């Protein structure tokens, strides 16, 4: 059994009077693809926001390895090795594709304002390395041909992929993908599935929010189901798929009372 890399312990978060997540426990093993599914409003994106430090949990902790990261600053969490994409694409539209990825790689760079101003050898070295790395990532994701296009002018599918590329730029241990296939047609979904697998095979651990079941069933090692801010299942895809509680959460309970 590979070791646990991310551990959510008894996570609870309340907004006003509403409990958005209630005592959620979730473990992410190194090198796996874990899918997080559940109906709209179940709290999936809230989980992402808790992991990346956008929200602080009301109670409970998030451990990256042995370090509790809840309460740490967002950019610091990224530096520790967690990167994410956004459900509603949030690229830097006025930057080129390449610059978007380089902005991601900057978190590993050390040179600051003064170094950049004087163009120290280290700053030149880092800039060069960043460009090379960014191109490499774009090739890996298969969108290098768009490197010099402005992000806002990219086709939708490329924008979604660029979100992933930018996140990879930060050299994360864990990649959080928030509905990467939203708005994709079946063909694009197949390609995306291959890309996600390729990323995993390159050594990343992936936590994925997705609604498309065929995609999830095809690539995930494990599926966790949230409903109403609670985890109602966490198992192999084939098992989860036939879990009556899950089916009920998704398709609704056939009404027998009325």
């Amino acid at each position, binding site marked *: 059994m590979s070791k646990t890399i991310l551990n959510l312990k008894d996570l609870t978060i309340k907004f*006003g*009077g*509403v409990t958005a997540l209630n005592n959620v426990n979730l473990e992410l093993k190194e090198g796996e693809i874990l899918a997080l599914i559940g*109906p*709209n*409003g*179940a709290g999936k994106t809230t989980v992402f926001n808790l992991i990346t430090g956008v929200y602080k949990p009301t109670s409970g902790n998030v451990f990256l390895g042995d370090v509790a990261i809840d309460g740490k600053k967002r950019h610091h969490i990224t530096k520790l090795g967690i990167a994410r994409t956004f459900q509603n694409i949030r690229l830097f539209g006025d930057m080129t594709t390449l610059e978007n990825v380089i902005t991601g790689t900057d978190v590993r760079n050390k040179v600051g304002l003064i170094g950049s101003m004087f163009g120290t050898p280290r700053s030149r070295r880092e800039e060069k390395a960043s460009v090379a790395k960014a191109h490499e990532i774009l090739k890996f994701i298969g969108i290098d041909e768009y490197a010099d296009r402005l992000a*806002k*002018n990219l086709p*939708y599918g490329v924008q979604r992929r660029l979100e992933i590329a930018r996140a990879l730029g930060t050299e994360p241990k864990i990649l959080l993908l928030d*509905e990467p296939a*939203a*708005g*994709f*047609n079946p063909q694009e979904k197949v390609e995306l599935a291959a890309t996600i697998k390729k990323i995993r095979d390159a050594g990343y651990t992936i936590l994925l929010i997705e*609604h*498309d*079941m*065929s*995609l*999830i*069933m095809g690539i995930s090692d494990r599926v966790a189901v949230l409903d*109403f801010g609670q985890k109602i299942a966490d198992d192999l895809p*084939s098992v989860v*798929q*036939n879990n009556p509680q*899950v*089916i*009920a959460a*998704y*398709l*609704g*309970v*056939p*009404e027998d*009372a*009325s």
Partner: protein
Amino acid sequence: MRLELKDLHVHYGKIEAIKGISVVVNQGEIVTLIGANGAGKTTTLKTISGLRKVSSGQILFDGQDISTVPAHERVDLGISQAPEGRGIFPGMTVLENLEMGKFNRKDRKSEMDEDLDKVYTLFPRLKERASQAGGTLSGGEQQMLAIGRALMARPKVLLLDEPSMGLAPQMIANIFRIITEINKTGVTILLVEQNAQQALQRAHRAYILETGNVVKEAKASDLLNDPAVREAYLGTGAH
């Protein structure tokens, strides 16, 4: 009353969210749009109510193209929407929220009371909480308020966007029962849902949306046991 979308296209910036759909809603029907996230269901409803601009195509309401009529005037034509996420006014009382539903109607006091009575009969909980701020209601109560508020405008067609979202199963069943009741009073309903089972049980006809396209149109009862629907939600291999 007849609502018809003809080859409707809608863009968000450069991205095409609705890629030419055609949908018909006839007088007295409950029609449901189902499909996964990002399929374009909510966008479709927002376009009908005027919150989103039409890129091309038509929205025909009783034969008239209303696609350039501003949102606030569509209410007066008889199109009301209970939006996704309920969109109630948190700082107003339940009663004030309901009164907002009648914003442009210069009804007599007696008509106002009549409509209030109707809503309160459908949702007795709202009457109990009439003077409470909307923001303090539970999710289910807020959904009731959103629907009740939309009904206050005496709509010909009621657009419901995911009324089951974030609600407990008991409450979902309750809401759907009421939707049928509303329909029986003569209000046509266009319902967007993720909860396919419930929606299909209640609706007459259904459209399945996938990435901005209508991929299937059928009688709701036919789709209820259609493996394709199940597949759309749970993927192949579910049985």
